[in-house]
């Protein structure tokens, strides 16, 4: 089972990826999660429990054409000012068994989108998370937090 830790200080030199304590010479780290939507595809409460899909893989520098799946396992992402922990230990990678923590807070039940794309080959660094925040009196909020 993978236990990956991604860390970055905001530039390529401070960016690293470890799996079970060993550094991975990666070309790309890609995570894309979509959840918490109603029948029309609009954001809704429920998060992971409302169903969705996830793609999470690593492409190494040695074999950039191959995508190595991260899950089942655990992925910790440390960005400046932001911390993400994505975990799915289900042997069959059941989507509903995914857990997500954002800055130490469990957002499993209200995550809408999570995109992390660290692409060294194309010099692309992108990460954001969208959460659904229900409110009692005011309109519900779909908040997107730009991570990097």
């Amino acid at each position, binding site marked *: 089972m993978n236990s990956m830790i991604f860390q970055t200080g905001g530039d390529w030199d401070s960016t690293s990826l470890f799996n079970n304590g060993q550094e991975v010479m990666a070309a790309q780290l890609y995570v894309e999660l979509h959840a918490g939507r109603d029948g029309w595809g609009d954001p809704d409460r429920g998060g992971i429990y409302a169903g969705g899909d996830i793609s999470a893989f690593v492409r190494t520098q040695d074999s950039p054409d191959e995508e190595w799946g991260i899950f089942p396992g655990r992925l910790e992402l440390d960005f400046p000012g932001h911390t993400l922990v994505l975990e799915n230990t289900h042997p069959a990678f059941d989507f509903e068994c995914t857990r997500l923590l954002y800055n130490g807070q469990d957002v499993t039940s209200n995550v809408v989108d999570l995109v992390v794309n660290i692409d060294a080959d194309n010099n692309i660094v992108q990460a954001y998370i969208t959460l659904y925040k229900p409110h009692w009196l005011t*309109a519900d*909020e*779909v*908040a*997107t937090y730009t991570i990097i």
Partner: protein
Amino acid sequence: MSEKNRISGGGSTGVRLAKVFVVGMLAALLAFPIADASAQRRGGGGGGGSFGRSSGGFGRSSGSFGRSNSGSSFGGGQGRSSSGTGSGSFGRSNSSSSGSFGRSGNFGSRSYTGSSSRSTSTYSYGGRNYSAHYYGGYGDYWYHPAWYYWTPFHPAFYYSSPYLGADNVYYPGGFSFVRLILGLAVFAVIFWVFVRIVFGGKRVRYTTYS
């Protein structure tokens, strides 16, 4: 007085008495609140001026029928008095007034001040007894409050709590505009929630944080 006069006089007096009684009752109902009117009737029964119950009832007293001993206004000396011994012409006691009609004061005005339809009762609450006025409105409900009086769905909600008067008797609270505003606010919220649920659908706003 002759027998004939007595008979005819008795018949006409009975009809007249009935008419006077009906008119008097109607007048009393119009002029007096019911409670006071009944009180006056009870008081009159024990007095010397009641119909047919005075010692000088018609046809039986030594003072013959129709002859008033008091020299009252309407036909006392002409055999037309109804009951004879009453001090008033119509056989009603007027011990509390000087006029002939059992009333005092100016025409058209109420001479029985302080005799409105309120009643004083004793009620018990919390193991203690209190004297209180009951007006018959929803303000009385607060003498024995129920939990649902605190909800704007019950009319008693819109009335203030009883207060202690200067006579050490509790009075029911009046209509409270503050509670009216509170009730309207509650209904406004309910209406807003209803409209939002039924007609509003889901409102979502999108925000972005960097």
